[in-house]
């Protein structure tokens, strides 16, 4: 991961594209730090990370990234309000205990939030439930229901409704296929909820929600 890394996972690239150069970023659940490294190398972003797995944290710090071992559910409360330009939660929302609280903290800590998550309304998921009557297990969702870290799946529609309830304004939304490629659908629409395997949202606190 050293040197000028410019190629990262497509969905991470889409997130990176939403970030202004030179901004302050907190990546919650930053994994091995691929996105942070990319943001630093290509956009000069002042990035920090929180990662649950010690292996991930150590890999990040070995690569010179500022990352701490921590839990999205418990450790976001420590951060002061408006400390970052962006708080990113990439493919982690569904693994948190209290997604709403996590999103609330993200909106408080960052001027903007970027959230990506798998869509449980995707037609293959629906058909697994409908035709086979079992929780979906596939390449993207490899866990059985009893050992999955993903305890709070939602559909894109669920997410959009929650965002509205929380007074989070959607600045951008992208409906993506399994490879992270854009589908060109209205992210809040019925088709996206059926055809998109995952989604990315750039959110901003509505003015009514400023604190």
């Amino acid at each position, binding site marked *: 991961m050293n040197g000028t890394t410019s190629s990262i996972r497509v969905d991470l690239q889409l997130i990176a594209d939403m970030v202004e150069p030179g901004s302050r970023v907190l990546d919650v659940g930053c994994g091995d730090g691929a996105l942070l490294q990319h943001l630093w190398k290509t956009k000069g972003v*002042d990035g*920090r990370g929180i990662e649950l797995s010690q292996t991930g944290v150590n890999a*990040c710090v070995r*690569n010179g*990234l500022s*990352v*701490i071992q921590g839990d999205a559910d418990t450790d976001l409360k420590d*951060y*002061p309000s408006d400390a970052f330009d962006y708080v990113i939660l990439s493919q982690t929302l569904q693994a948190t205990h209290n997604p709403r609280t996590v999103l609330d903290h993200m909106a408080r800590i960052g001027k903007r939030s970027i959230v990506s998550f798998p869509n449980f309304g995707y037609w293959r998921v629906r058909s697994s439930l409908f035709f086979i009557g079992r929780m979906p297990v596939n390449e993207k969702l490899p866990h059985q229901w009893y050992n999955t870290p993903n305890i709070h799946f939602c559909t894109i529609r669920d997410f959009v409704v929650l965002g509205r309830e929380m007074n989070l304004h959607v600045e951008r939304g992208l409906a993506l296929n399994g490879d992270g490629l854009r589908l060109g659908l209205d992210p809040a629409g019925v088709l996206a909820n059926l055809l998109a395997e995952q989604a990315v949202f750039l959110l901003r606190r509505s003015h009514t929600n400023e604190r």
Partner: protein
Amino acid sequence: MPAACQHLPARVRAGKKSLTGHDFNSSYAAMSEPAFPLPGHRIELGVDEKLRLDCGIALGPFPVAYQTYGTLNADKSNAILVCHALTGDQFVAETHPISGKPGWWDLMVGPGKPLDTDRYFVICANVLGGCLGTVGPKDANPATGKPYGLSFPVITIADMVRAQRLLIDHLGIDQLFAVMGGSMGAMQALDWAARYPERVFAAVPIAGAARHSAQNIAFHEVGRQAIMADPDWHGGDYLLHDTRPHRGLAVARMAAHITYLSETALHRKFGRNLQDRDTLTYGFDADFQVESYLRHQGITFVERFDANSYLYITRAMDYFDLAAEFGTVAAAFENTPVRFCLVSFTSDWLFPTPESRAVVHALNAVAANVSFVEIESDKGHDAFLLDEPEFRDVLSGFLNGCAEHKGLKAT
């Protein structure tokens, strides 16, 4: 107590020549044992202006002994200050002039090592109150001409850091590239970052805490009581009586040494194995290997460490509490520009991970730039001194990242 503890020959070794030409022997006039020339540098600080200590006393002029490795670059931007632990000293990466053992951080400091001396200029000073060249209780009190003993002022971690700052001033270094250390060294690193944030680019507190816990104060008190209960201590004036409280100091070291290890490490190393015998003796000899080991630790320690120094330095650690001085730990680091990397070890019960995590939470509260890793190790507190590859890689990676951010050229 084994007989060997009672009277130890002062081991005198012919050390290297003093690099700065200072006469190292003069300050040892107060010592009863033969003086030895120590390698390294030594400087008088607090000459123009005395150092105001936390206890209210102004100290100066006073000597500080330090050692350096590597070369200071032209813009003096590559200096790393290493802060030693309670019983450490400035001999970080060379054969110790008294014990003959490798430097205490030989694994970390040197060409191609995480603190790469081909790239960085590494400084380590004997702490205030120490007994290897920096002023301490065994030196002569200028007011009386006799060894200070307990008339030496009580010093704090902040005082140690203030003295180090004078040294850094003397070396003409505006900003340290990094300040780091384990245990008491971590306390100094934190204090540096809190007190002189503009003088530190990065801080690496390893196996440390923002305050000394009640349990740790308790262990220190056991050690101090052991020293003071030794009749040879003479109320701290043992040098005037030409004795040393070796027995008390050895017991203090033995008790402390247990806290540096872990149950797992002790069990792996010794188990219930017997020492040079096949059966129990039904007596109080060192039947078990672990007893023999601890006695050895005690005996070798008294050769190189001054008992009063041990009292003063343990006290400095006990008094350490960043929140007491700054209000909260977070307040100590408000708007800090320093990049932090905290490290803890899973089996360290003296400075357990929650202590480091508390500092991390405080740093998060002020949105500081912080990394934190917990290293899996069963070697207890001492793990920071030992060969832990993951730890080495983390340290190396953090420093590389900092060098990149600071624009420090790879030489």
